[in-house]
């Protein structure tokens, strides 16, 4: 089980809990579980989110493995100028 923290606007759409326990070996699995558990996240997940694993931010890398005991944050899609 991995502890996952949703950030900002994503947290509100996931019932507001500060930390979730999710069974996921890759980013793809994590996002699937989140979509199933929290249908209100569907739009954000479709637009794309950023996932931070132990401080490193991944934007589209679905098959990136999530090591056990990793610190995982799900952030809104990061874009810039």
């Amino acid at each position, binding site marked *: 089980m991995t502890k996952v923290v949703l*950030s900002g606007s994503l947290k*509100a759409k996931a019932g507001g809990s500060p930390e979730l326990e999710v069974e996921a070996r890759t980013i793809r699995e994590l996002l699937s579980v989140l979509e199933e558990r929290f249908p209100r996240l569907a739009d954000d997940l479709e637009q794309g989110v950023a996932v931070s694993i132990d401080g490193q931010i991944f934007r589209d890398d679905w098959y990136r493995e999530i090591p056990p005991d990793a610190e995982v944050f799900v952030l809104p899609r990061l*874009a*810039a*100028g």
Partner: protein
Amino acid sequence: MPLDQDSKPSKRDFKVVGTRPTRPDGVDKVTGRAKYGADLYAPGMLVGRVLRSPHAHARFKGIDASKALAAPGVKAVVTAADFGSVRRSLRDVLENCLAQGKALYEGHAVAAIAAVDVEAADAALALIEVDYEVLPHVTDVEAAMAPDAPLLREDMITSGMDPAPTKPSNIASFMELGHGDVAKGFEAADVVVERSFKTEATHQGYIEPHACLASVAQDGSAELWCCTQGHFVVRDTCAQLCGMEVSRLRVTASEIGGGFGGKTTVFIEPVALMLSKKAGLPVKIVMDRAEVFKATGPTSSTAMKVRVGATKDGRITAGAAELCYQGGAFPGSPIEFGAMSAFACYDLENLHVSGYDVIVNRPKQAAYRAPGAPMSTFAVESVIDEVADKLGMDRIDFRLRNASRNGSQSAYGPKFGTIGLVETLEAAKAHPHYSAPLAPGQGRGVACGFWFNFGGQTSVSLNVQMDGTIGLSLGTPDIGGSRASMCLMAAEELGIPYDRVRAIITDTASLGYNDTSEGSRVTFSAGMATIAASRDAVVKLCERAAKMWGIPEDAVVWENGEAKPSGSNAGDFDPLSLADIAAKAGNTGGPIAGHSEINADGAGVSFATHLVDSEVDQETGQVKILRYTVIQDAGKAVHPSYVEGQFQGGAAQGIGWALNEEYIYGEDGKLQNAGFLDYRLPVASDLPMIDTVIVEVANPGHPYGVRGVGETSIVPPLAAVANSVSAAAGVRLTHLPMSPPRVRAAIDEARGEGKLAAE
């Protein structure tokens, strides 16, 4: 790709990376040879012009273009009705390109015409009849949030609130982030400062207006030439908006005269394509300056409140902020990034930031270098200065006491890895600027800033030509010297002189996909791909040499641009240069190229500290910037002159934002200053030389340690200048820009309250 073991600053001696070859694009740009968005012509080309709403907010019941179509020289008219339905994530983009039943801001495109020349097009525009029903408008972010504000959308219920509101409003969404317990934190503080701030909207101010040339053939294939920061994204977006297969549209990025984030989306491109499709001829659209101001993507204007508490010994116990950003007439202001970056420079136990994304009757905002961060940083860094002063602490020491370090929990959640904020603060403290004397009426400001860096999808091809020179194909438009930097990295990997490598930005049909040049990602991502493609080419070059010598592949090494046997056991052969191997390429297996198609990961974050001295004319309120120093962590500066250029450019834009630039709206909801005369950018005569210090704390996620630098430099200046001007004027300024009337008004108010000596 992780940091090369020998790239740590103290260990590696780069041969060409870190040098300063003359920029390769300079001569073409100053002689007029460079081709920008408006510089392409096609036989039979038509001129496209856009009809824009004269009203800030209006419903339109119908558009009658019959007279326009019948006018001499007119070949096509396009409205939103010509476009089919698109997926949800593109609907706002399309509606912004052409209004659908409602004009949401003055300047909102309503229809477009293609005609044989400008005169015919403009005459015909005047013949398009639009039946407007003018509606009440709102342009101010706070006014738009008031309960009685005119609504842009009757069905907008704020998302992110639980329970959801029952009535519609102009607040698209609410978000909050943080950790710990701010109430407890403030209770434990000896000093608490709370201030409210406002910033006005600004424009990226690129000198080159948007321009494009679209040509759709009878079979539905199309070519598009445009100035953009991301031609692959333009291709994919336009293909979807116009109902085309992606492979049928070929987009070429022109040389770009500035973008800064404002050219990461589309405004006129889908319109030009649709006009060309209907007219059966190429169509060129060039925006004029007023259109750029009224109908491209300025920044948000904001209203913010920040509260910081600290103990006597200088530890911040809590930080809180409430941010309200308007993103124009569509949801999507950078409120989350503003919230995430506001306190990023500080290691806080207790933090809470909330944010409102608000819509108003203004053009749809677009990115501008570190979107959202300059404004929230202005608010936080202003309060940080006040807290330091109340504690009697040196302003840099106070920041050092609370600075984010390796392993700190970031304001946005994840722990920081290796970061360089402390190094920039220490460099600022030690810099002669910080201890230089100040005369009466002068003030010094310091501020820190943070921005994310991104990786993203990147493709690079490297071709070895018959004479041993290298052709590098890139797909990230060059907005900051990336062509030269890529050539330096390829030359470094191949062990050849820099000028043996030439880079071009290819069109979308000639290379794999590339994400947009934004997010300070290019030197990092395209650099990583260039290094990977170079290493791929080196493997192949060694294979060919092995073949030519008849020895095993693993018996060949690559050194200083040549293949050599790895040792005397491998054989006694003279080294083979790139040219030697390339000359025989056809005989040894075919063309030699290196490739890389990656999703670049491992981008590091970038911090900066800025120092600024200014002088305030107490009578007129005018501010003069006397001295400015940018100190920023670049990880590894591949081409230091370009890095310094990014530092200086971000500072100059931030100074303009802090002192003079603002969108001024009239009571009628119309933009009053849609031109450079009245929208006052700093020019060369306004500013002193901006000094720079490049700090290098290697990013462990890049082979050379590169961090992106393009955006962080605009994050501290609003705060640094505000802190400096506040010190010089003797009164805290909280509303940007600090134009002379505002400075004078603040001085007058402080005098009236007895806080400042009378004249």
